[in-house]
């Protein structure tokens, strides 16, 4: 997708003006939040599971080189081919080369954020391969021509009424009614034949298992297995941070992922894959290619962004983010939206083109609170601001007002004079009404909110009078 993070403010204005966006977001986030809260309340071991998960990821990251080598060796032993890509461009080339070598015309795809990150859609288009998205939400946005707006629910920005219109327009046999089950049925009718006839399947992986060489997909629709079983070749593109040491370590995450993402104890379909079909197997691909993608993950390992590599892409942070809930995922203008995206986008594509993302956050801390692997997202966003500030990237107005304010705030006596003067000024503006509806230089506040009229005299002035 085309990144538009540098136009964040315009994106926000546009998002806030969209008539049905907020409705669509509210319908989904309300349900996801309450379901998550309920399933976590029913899981007394949650705190320890979360702590264990964090420790496992930290341990794996501490020994990432070891585990990657171990994974590679075991995956090759299972019959898979393992490729390494430092950049999205390299990953795309590996994928298109395989497609060309296979003479592939169609590829079915299981939603994966890493696929979006490396631009798999563009790659397939270039290679002349027809791409068929099989995840229901991805199917919706493919028909609509939209980028995903959420990492678990890519079509969160659409109301069911909009989906109904879209299907009526694009499906061969659309449903007669607009209710959600009928829409799901319509998609089933449309997609079913396509699963069985594709040349290639492409998926991501939620976890890699070092000591078996397995990779895992989790879905609720069952589209991963329907997608990856029939075609003769299965390509997996996956980030190197998805590693865990063993099957039993993966179990810890499987218990957390679905709870955090959609509020269920486990996803309906959890599949462990080990290479191509065995002698005598009646189905399964003949060739399996695993593409291990770095794309700045090894850079993140070396600085304060390291904890971000614990992320299991559950989406809880965005479901609970007030900014995401107000404007949805598209406003962020990048593959990964919400709090985790505001960390990842600068890390993967540079701070210059995504200056606003770390700043457009109230640092309320809810994302960290709900994160199943306890990623200190607010702290990292703040550290990114410090990195920006040190690089002289703060806007001139911010830098200038900070300097003036710092000059006063570090000189208490002078500060007293200034606040005393401001107190008088604000009271003049309030004209005794208790509130102020316009203040020079503070239009951002007073366009939509009143400012209280200050009392006569600052606290320090009044205190001095009273006590001395």
């Amino acid at each position, binding site marked *: 997708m085309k990144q538009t993070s540098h136009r964040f403010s315009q994106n926000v204005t546009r998002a806030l003006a969209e008539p049905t966006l907020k409705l669509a977001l509210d319908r989904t986030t309300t349900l996801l939040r309450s379901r998550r809260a309920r399933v976590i309340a029913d899981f007394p071991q949650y705190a320890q599971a979360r702590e264990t998960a964090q420790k496992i990821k930290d341990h794996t990251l501490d020994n990432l080189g070891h585990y990657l080598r171990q994974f590679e060796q075991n995956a090759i032993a299972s019959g898979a081919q393992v490729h390494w890509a430092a950049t999205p461009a390299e990953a795309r080339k590996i994928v298109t080369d395989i497609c060309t070598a296979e003479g592939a015309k169609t590829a079915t795809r299981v939603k994966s954020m890493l696929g979006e990150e490396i631009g798999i859609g563009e790659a397939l288009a270039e290679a002349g391969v027809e791409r068929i998205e099989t995840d229901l939400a991805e199917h919706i946005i493919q028909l609509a021509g939209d980028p995903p707006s959420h990492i678990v629910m890519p079509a969160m920005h659409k109301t069911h009424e909009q989906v109904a219109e879209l299907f009526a327009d694009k499906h061969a046999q659309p449903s007669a009614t607009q209710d959600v089950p009928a829409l799901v049925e319509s998609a089933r009718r449309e997609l079913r034949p396509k699963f069985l006839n594709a040349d290639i399947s492409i998926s991501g992986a939620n976890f890699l298992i070092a000591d078996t060489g397995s990779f895992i997909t989790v879905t609720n*629709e069952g589209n991963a297995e329907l997608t990856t079983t029939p075609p003769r070749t299965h390509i997996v593109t996956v980030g190197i941070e998805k590693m865990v040491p063993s099957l039993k370590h993966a179990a810890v995450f499987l218990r957390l992922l679905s709870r955090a993402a959609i509020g269920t104890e486990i996803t309906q379909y959890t599949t462990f894959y080990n290479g191509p079909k065995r002698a005598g197997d009646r189905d399964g691909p003949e060739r399996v290619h695993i593409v291990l993608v770095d794309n700045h993950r090894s850079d993140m390992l070396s600085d304060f962004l390291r904890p971000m590599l614990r992320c299991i892409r559950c989406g809880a942070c965005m479901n609970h983010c007030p900014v995401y809930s107000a404007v949805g995922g598209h406003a962020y203008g990048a593959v990964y939206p919400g709090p985790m995206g505001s960390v990842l986008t600068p890390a993967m594509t540079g701070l210059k083109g995504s200056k606003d993302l770390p700043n457009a956050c109230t640092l309320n801390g809810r994302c960290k609170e709900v994160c199943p692997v306890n990623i200190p997202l607010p702290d990292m966003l703040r550290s990114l601001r410090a990195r920006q500030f040190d690089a002289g990237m703060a806007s001139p107005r911010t830098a200038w007002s900070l300097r003036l304010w710092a000059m006063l705030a570090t000189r208490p006596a002078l500060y007293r004079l200034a606040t005393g003067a401001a107190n008088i000024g604000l009271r003049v503006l309030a004209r005794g009404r208790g509130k102020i509806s316009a203040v020079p230089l503070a239009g951002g506040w007073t366009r939509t909110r009143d400012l209280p009229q200050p009392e006569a005299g600052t606290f320090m002035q009044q205190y001095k009078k009273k006590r001395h």
Partner: protein
Amino acid sequence: MSRDAILAKIDRVNGKGDPSGIAELAAALIAEPDGFRATFPDRPTYERFVAKATSDTVTATVEPLSGLSALPAAIAAYLTENGLAQHIALQPRDSLTALDWTGFETAASARMDEPVAVTFADAGIAETGSLVFQSAPDAPVLLNFLPLHHLVVIRKDTILPHMEDAFERFGTLASDQQRSLNIITGTSGTADIEARNVRGAHGPRYMHIYIYCIDS
């Protein structure tokens, strides 16, 4: 080559270190699994499995069988009750094909719009009400995904408390792994439109589980 460059970069940050001892460290992290998984000390494994499998999130139905030989009659009744033709896609596994299927049309693979498939689960997981299917020449994967009605047979003594127990059962080494291990919990569902739960997204809409004890 990107492989070596990526690994070299990681080693530079982490230090290459001595790989001995890593396995022990990793094992210590999960030495006490009951601290981080749902436990059910007061409930027999079987009961927990049934309660979870039939819960309103998993939505399966469960039927006890006196023995495997009672399966064809039970399936015939299910098909009749649901107004389905007496046609089933039957997993080509000896224990199933050896049964008396007189009166049924059976096929070893599923068609694109298969209404009913019957497959054997290799294990159950009581913690979550899940079923485990290991792929094999007589256990193709698609049979579990294509039908609208997924009828599953499981032996009661293969229902295990936790996912970890299932891994133990099938082996945790690389060489133990078949092509795929499916852990299936209920039916195909989606919440992709306004987070509303709908069943029968791409795969099965109904799951019915027959549980039997070994004929003695």
